[in-house]
C-alpha cells in the first residue's frame, strides 16, 4: 500500500480546518466543524462535498451500450442520452462487486462511477469482460475532480455560482431549469466544459459536477462564495454517511459486499433479467444464471431498517437478537450493517441483515449493544424522505 492519495481540493480542506481521514486509498475530509451541523445544513440548506476519490471510467466505442448490458446487471442500453442509472457489477455467482452510477453523458458514451475502494477492481473486471466488444475503456479519474452540492437550496446555489453558465452547444439538449433527477448535462465553468449530474447520495435534491483538476479549486471556491449566504457549508464523509443512512442508501462494504446478491439487499430491481435483443433473445450478462436462480429461491437473510426505541445506537457488526426480558440478550437473528443516531429524526437508526422470519415491519427485536440488549423495531426504509414541493 502506498501513501493515501490527495484530491485536487486537498489544500482547500486543510485551509478550512478539516479533520482528514484515510478512505478508500484517499485522504478525505471527515468533518470540517461538526458532523451534526454539516448533516443539518444539507437537510435545511446545502452542503458542499469533495467526491474526487470516486472512480470514473469512460466507456466509448460502437459497442459501448451492448458491452455495459453484458458487463453490468442493469439495462444500460435503455438509458437515454444524458440520463443516469444506478446499477451494479456482479461476479458470475451473482455477488456484488460494486454499486455504480452510469451516466450516458454523450451520444454512445458512458461514464461508470465506482466507489473509491473498488475503482481498480471495477476497471479490471470491465476490461476482462470486453472480449468480443468494440469498446474503449479509460480511467478518466486522474486529472479531474468531482464536487457535489446537495440540499434543498442546491439549485439556487448552482444558479448563483459565478462563472458557471449554460452553453447550448455542449448541454446535450437540456436547459438547466429542466434538468431532471438522475439526468446530466454539459455546462461551462470559466469557459471550460464541466459535466453536471442531478444525482447524489444524501436523500436531498442536488448536483454532482465533474471538473478538470485545474479548475477544481476555483469551482469549489465559487460554490462556497455563492452558497454561504444561502446556508451552504463544506461537509465531510461523516455527514455523508449519516445522510445516506437516513435516506436508506446502501454503502459498499456495509450493506453490499461479495457475500451479498442485489436481491438480499432489497435491490433486486437493478437486476434486469428482461434484457433482450430486438428479436426477443435474452441478452446474456455476467451473473445472469446465478441471479435468475437466486431470484426464484427464498433468501436466507434480508436487509431491513431498524428504529431504536432507546437512546443507544447500534453500530455496524453488532448482533441483532430476539427481544428477551429486560436487557437480556436473546438468540441471534441477524447483524447490523450500518447504524447511527439519526440527526434528523432524533432516534437511533440502523440497517441490518436478519432472517426472513423476523423481517416483517413492526417486528420487535433487539440489538446487542456491547452486552446489553437495546430494543429496536423493524421499520420501512428510507428512514427519511425529503419533503416534496
Amino acid at each position: 500500500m502506498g501513501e493515501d492519495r490527495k484530491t485536487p481540493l486537498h489544500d482547500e480542506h486543510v485551509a478550512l480546518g478539516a479533520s482528514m481521514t484515510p478512505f478508500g486509498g484517499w485522504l478525505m475530509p471527515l468533518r470540517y466543524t461538526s458532523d451534526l451541523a454539516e448533516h443539518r445544513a444539507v437537510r435545511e440548506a446545502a452542503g458542499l462535498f469533495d467526491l474526487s476519490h470516486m472512480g470514473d471510467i469512460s466507456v466509448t466505442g460502437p459497442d459501448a451500450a451492448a458491452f455495459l448490458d453484458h458487463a453490468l446487471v442493469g439495462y444500460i442500453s435503455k438509458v437515454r442520452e444524458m440520463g443516469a442509472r444506478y446499477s451494479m457489477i456482479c461476479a458470475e455467482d451473482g455477488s456484488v462487486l460494486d454499486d455504480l452510477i452510469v451516466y450516458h453523458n454523450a451520444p454512445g458514451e458512458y461514464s461508470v462511477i465506482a466507489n473509491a475502494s473498488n475503482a481498480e477492481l471495477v476497471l479490471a473486471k470491465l476490461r476482462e469482460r470486453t472480449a468480443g466488444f468494440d469498446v474503449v475503456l479509460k480511467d478518466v479519474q486522474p486529472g479531474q475532480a468531482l464536487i457535489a452540492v446537495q440540499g434543498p437550496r442546491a439549485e439556487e446555489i448552482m444558479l448563483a455560482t459565478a462563472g458557471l453558465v449554460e452553453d447550448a452547444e455542449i448541454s446535450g439538449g437540456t436547459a438547466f431549469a429542466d434538468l431532471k433527477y438522475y439526468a446530466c448535462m454539459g455546462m461551462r465553468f470559466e469557459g471550460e466544459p464541466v459535466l453536471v449530474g442531478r444525482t447524489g447520495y444524501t436523500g436531498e435534491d442536488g448536483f454532482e459536477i465533474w471538473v478538470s483538476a485545474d479548475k477544481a479549486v476555483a469551482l469549489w471556491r465559487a460554490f462556497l462564495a455563492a452558497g454561504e449566504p444561502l446556508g451552504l457549508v463544506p461537509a465531510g464523509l461523516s455527514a455523508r454517511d449519516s445522510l445516506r443512512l437516513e435516506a436508506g442508501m446502501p454503502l459498499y462494504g456495509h450493506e453490499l459486499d461479495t457475500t451479498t446478491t442485489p436481491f438480499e439487499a432489497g435491490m433486486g430491481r437493478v437486476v434486469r433479467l428482461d434484457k433482450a435483443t430486438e428479436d426477443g433473445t435474452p441478452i446474456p450478462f455476467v451473473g445472469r444464471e446465478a441471479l435468475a436462480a437466486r431470484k426464484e429461491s427464498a433468501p436466507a437473510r434480508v436487509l431491513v431498517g431498524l428504529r431504536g426505541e432507546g437512546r443507544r445506537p447500534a453500530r455496524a457488526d453488532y448482533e441483532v437478537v430476539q427481544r428477551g426480558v429486560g436487557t437480556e440478550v436473546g438468540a441471534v437473528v441477524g447483524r447490523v450493517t450500518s447504524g447511527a443516531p439519526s440527526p434528523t429524526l432524533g432516534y437511533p437508526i440502523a440497517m441490518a441483515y436478519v432472517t426472513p422470519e423476523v423481517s416483517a415491519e413492526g417486528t420487535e427485536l433487539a440489538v446487542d449493544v456491547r452486552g446489553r440488549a437495546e430494543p429496536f423495531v423493524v421499520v420501512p426504509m428510507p428512514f427519511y424522505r425529503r419533503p416534496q414541493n
Partner: protein
Amino acid sequence: MADFPENLKYTTEHEWLDQSTPAVIGVTDVAAEALGDVVYLELPEVGATIEAGSVVGEIESTKSVSELYSPVSGTVTEVNSEAVDNPEIVNQDPYGKGWLFKVEVTGAGELLSAAQYAEHTGS
C-alpha cells in the same frame, strides 16, 4: 496548539480531573474533538464505588463510541444530568459545563500534569 488548564490533572485516556472535594471529572477537548459530536453519555450511578483505571461509562458520538475511564477510585457523589440531557455541551465546554461526574476520592491512578498531557497528545 491545544491549551490545557494548568490546574487540572490528566490521564492518557483523555480524562481530566479537578482535585477539589469532591473531585470533578470530564474529558479533554482532545477527546471531544476526536469523538466528533457527542450524542449519548452513559455515566456511573450516584453512590457507585469505582476503581481508578476501570471503565465507568460510555461516550457515544455520531460516528463512534468510546469508553470512559475513571482517573480515581472512590464513590460517585454526583453526575452531570445536564450533560446527559444535552451531550453537545461536552463538545462546547469540555472543561466547564461539560463536566461528567464527581467522586469522593479514596485513591488515584497515574495522573499527568498539563505539560505531560500536552506531550502525550503531541500538541
